[in-house]
């Protein structure tokens, strides 16, 4: 298992459900570490179906978005799928403006997202 300081990971029916430690994902050092921990879920821990639950996350910068794009590609390369859920309205708007809502599969709740993995 890889070391995790910026995320907490739980298993739900074979899906790695990831929650964030930080309410504001801004500091560049933390974002680098976050990116490494997320990618390690796929490369070290061999998880390919991932759900990022944004409950409690109030803010994230464009540097954090870049880490999510990398993770999405890693999950796809591993034959899995990345989904996002529980985005507050303002953060969802950022995905819409940047058109990253076309890149990511965004679900309203964790239950919706977990169900989508089982289909």
């Amino acid at each position: 298992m890889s070391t995790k300081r910026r995320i907490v990971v739980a298993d739900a029916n074979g899906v790695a459900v990831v929650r964030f430690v930080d309410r504001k994902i801004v500091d560049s050092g933390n974002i680098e570490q976050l990116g490494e921990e997320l990618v390690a879920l796929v490369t070290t821990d061999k998880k390919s179906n991932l759900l990022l639950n944004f409950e409690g996350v109030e803010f994230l910068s464009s540097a954090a978005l870049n880490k999510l794009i990398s993770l999405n590609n890693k999950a796809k390369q591993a034959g899995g799928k990345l989904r996002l859920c529980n985005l507050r309205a303002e953060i969802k708007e950022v995905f819409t403006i940047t058109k990253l809502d076309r890149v990511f599969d965004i679900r309203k709740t964790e239950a919706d997202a977990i169900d989508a993995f089982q289909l």
Partner: protein
Amino acid sequence: MPHNSWTWVLEKSVASVTDNAHELIEELMSALDRMGWGGRDRFHIHMAVEEAIVNAIEHGNQRMPEKKVDVVFKLSPEKAWIRISDQGKGFDFQHLPDPTDEEHLEEPHGRGVMLMRELMSDVRYNKRGNAVEMLKIRSAEEQTPEE
């Protein structure tokens, strides 16, 4: 953008270190809270300032701590005006690739500037491209009746 009724003004010059910049952003967010700014407008300002300051430190000043980022925040209950400048060479803000084009959608550059433009009411760069001025006019739905 002249305005003579600002109720809170902060002008500071900080080293190109993100921790210093985030302290300034926290001061701005606290001032916005005291003035009753909330919801989407508050988030939009936070996002635009975060992106502008990170760009100034990382792309403008190349993370050299001896180079300064100059920050001016001016707030009233209705408007927020922000100026961020760095000591870098500047950039050609008129010819940035559109990060929402299909071919650039997953590239790591250009989203910050695009978000600043989309989220603020007005965004202007100086000719050199090393200073940005941003204005946010508070949305009608965000203003509470007692103000």
